[in-house]
C-alpha cells in the first residue's frame, strides 16, 4: 500500500517535471539542428547535428557573428553590479530598520512595503525623464543605479533576520567599543550569509531578465543586454529558428548555472521569507 502510494506520487512528480522542463529540453535539443532539419515534419526528436562534427555550428555562429558573446558580457557586468548594489543598500537599510531607533521608523518602513505594490510602469516615465536629464541614456548607469537606491524585498528579508539576532551580541560589541558601522560590518553582515546569497541571486535574476529598462535606455547595438538582444534577434530573423533557439539557450545558460549552484538559497530562502520584490 505504502509502496503503491509512493509510486503514484513519483509518477505525478515526474509528469509535472516533464511539463515544466520539456520545453527547455526541446529547445536545447533543437539548437543542435540544421535549418532544414528544424522544419521537418513530423518534428525530429534527435537533432541531426548532435554528435557530428558540426555540432556547435549554430553556437559558434550566434556567439561570433551575431555578437552574443558581447551581450553576455554586458549582462554579466550589469547584473553583477546591480546585485551588489542591492545587497549593499538592502543590508544597511535592513540593519537600520531592525536595530536603530529613529523617529518615524515604522511609517517609513510601511511606505517602503507599500511601494512594492506599485507597478514599475507607473514610475518609469519620470524615471526616464530623470535619466534623460542626467544624460545617462544609452549608458549602463540606468540599468545599475536604480538597484542601488532601494529594494523592498531585500530590506524586508534583512530586517527580519537582523531582528532575531540576540541583543546580547550587540551589547557585547558595544562594551568593546564598537560603533554601529563596526557592529554592522563585523557582526551583523557576516552572520547573514544565507540572506545575502538569496538576495544576491534573486537580484541577479531580476536584472538579467529585465527587459523594460534595457529597451528604453539602451539604443546602441553594442551595449545591449542579452535579454534585449534576444528580442531584437527575434524580430530580425523571425524564421531562423535554429539560431533563435541557440540564442535563447545562450541567454538562459549563465543564469541557470548560477541558479543550480545556489538553488538551495533560492528555493529554501524564499520558502522561509516568502516574498519577492
Amino acid at each position, binding site marked *: 500500500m505504502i509502496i503503491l502510494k509512493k509510486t503514484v506520487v513519483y509518477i505525478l512528480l515526474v509528469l*509535472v517535471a516533464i511539463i515544466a522542463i520539456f520545453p527547455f529540453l*526541446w529547445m536545447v535539443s533543437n539548437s543542435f539542428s540544421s535549418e532544414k532539419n528544424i522544419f521537418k515534419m513530423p518534428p525530429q526528436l534527435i537533432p541531426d547535428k548532435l554528435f557530428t562534427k558540426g555540432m556547435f555550428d549554430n553556437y559558434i555562429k550566434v556567439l561570433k557573428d551575431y555578437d552574443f558573446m558581447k551581450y553576455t558580457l554586458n549582462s554579466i557586468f550589469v547584473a553583477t553590479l546591480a546585485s551588489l548594489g542591492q545587497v549593499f543598500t538592502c543590508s544597511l537599510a535592513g540593519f537600520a530598520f531592525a536595530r536603530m531607533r529613529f523617529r518615524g521608523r515604522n511609517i517609513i518602513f510601511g511606505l517602503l512595503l507599500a511601494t512594492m505594490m506599485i*507597478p514599475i*510602469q*507607473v*514610475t518609469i516615465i519620470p524615471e526616464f*525623464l530623470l535619466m534623460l536629464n542626467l544624460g545617462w541614456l544609452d549608458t549602463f548607469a540606468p540599468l545599475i543605479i536604480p538597484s542601488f537606491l532601494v529594494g523592498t524585498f531585500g530590506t524586508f528579508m534583512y530586517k527580519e533576520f537582523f531582528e532575531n539576532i540576540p541583543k546580547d551580541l550587540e551589547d557585547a560589541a558595544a562594551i568593546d567599543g564598537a560603533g554601529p558601522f563596526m557592529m554592522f560590518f563585523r557582526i551583523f553582515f557576516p552572520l547573514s550569509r544565507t540572506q545575502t546569497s538569496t538576495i544576491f541571486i534573486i537580484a541577479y535574476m531580476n536584472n538579467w531578465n529585465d527587459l523594460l529598462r534595457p529597451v528604453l535606455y539602451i539604443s546602441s547595438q553594442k551595449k545591449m543586454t542579452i535579454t534585449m538582444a534576444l528580442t531584437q534577434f527575434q524580430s530580425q530573423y523571425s524564421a531562423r529558428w535554429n539560431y533563435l533557439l541557440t540564442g535563447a539557450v545562450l541567454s538562459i545558460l549563465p*543564469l541557470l548555472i548560477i541558479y543550480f549552484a545556489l538553488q538551495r538559497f533560492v528555493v529554501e530562502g524564499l520558502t522561509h521569507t516568502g516574498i519577492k520584490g
Partner: protein
Amino acid sequence: MVASFIISFTEWDILTEPEWIGTTNYFELFEDPDFLYILSNTFVFSLVYVVGVMFFGLLLAVLVNSKIRGITFFRSAYFVPVVTSSVAVGLVWNWLLSPNYGLINSILERLLNINPPSWLGDKNIVLIVVAMVQVWKMAGYYMILFLAGLQEIPNMYYDAARIDGASKLQSFKKITLPLLTPTTFFVFTIAIINSFKSFEIIYTMTQGGPSNATNTLVYSIYLNGFLFYKTGYASAMAYVLLSIVAIITYINFILKKRWVKYQY
C-alpha cells in the same frame, strides 16, 4: 510618482515644452474605444493569471510538500521556468505553438487528428494562450509561497484528525485550507499585483497583436509613452493602472476579515 501624476495632466511629447491641459487626458482615455478594449484585455489576462497561478501553485505545493527522497530536486525543477527570462520563455512557446512547424500543432494533427487553432493568430483565444504561458512560467513561484504556508501548519492537527478517523481529503478541506488562508491572502495579493505588471511576455510573444487583442495597460503605457511620444497620455494610463491595483488591493484587505483565519 508625484511627477508622473503631474505629467498626466499635460500634453507632452518629451521634446517640446509640456502644455497644461488639465484632465483632458483622462476624459480622452475613457472615450477611446481602444482604451476600453485594452482595459477589458487587462482584466481578462489578470483573471486567467490569478486563477491559474493560485490553482496550480497550490496543487504543486501540496505535491512537493511530501517528505520523500529527491523532493528538493523536483522543487528546483519546477522553479526553473521562474528563473528563466520571459523573453526566452516567450520565444520557446512561440515556436511550440507556431501553426506550421510547432510541436503542439503537429501532435494534435498527426496523433489526435484534431484541426488545431492558430494559437497566436486567432484574436479570440490569443489573450488566454499568452496568459496561460505566463501561468506556466510563474506557477513554480507561487508553489514556493504556498509551500512556506503549508510548512507552518503544525503536524499535531493532522495527527489529531487521523486519530478521529478523518480521511486525507477531509483533513485537507477542514485543516489545510482554513489554516492556509493567511498565506492564500498574501499570495492572492501578490498574484493580482503581478498580473497587472506582465509586460515582457506580451512584448516577446505578440507585441500586443493581432489587432490589439493582447494589448494590455502596461503594454499600452510603453507604446504611448515611448513609441508614440504621448507622455502625458501614457502617464494618465499609468495612473489608471495604479488606481486599479490600489482599489483591488484595498477591497481585498477589507474582505480579509471575512475569510482569513488565524491559528492563534
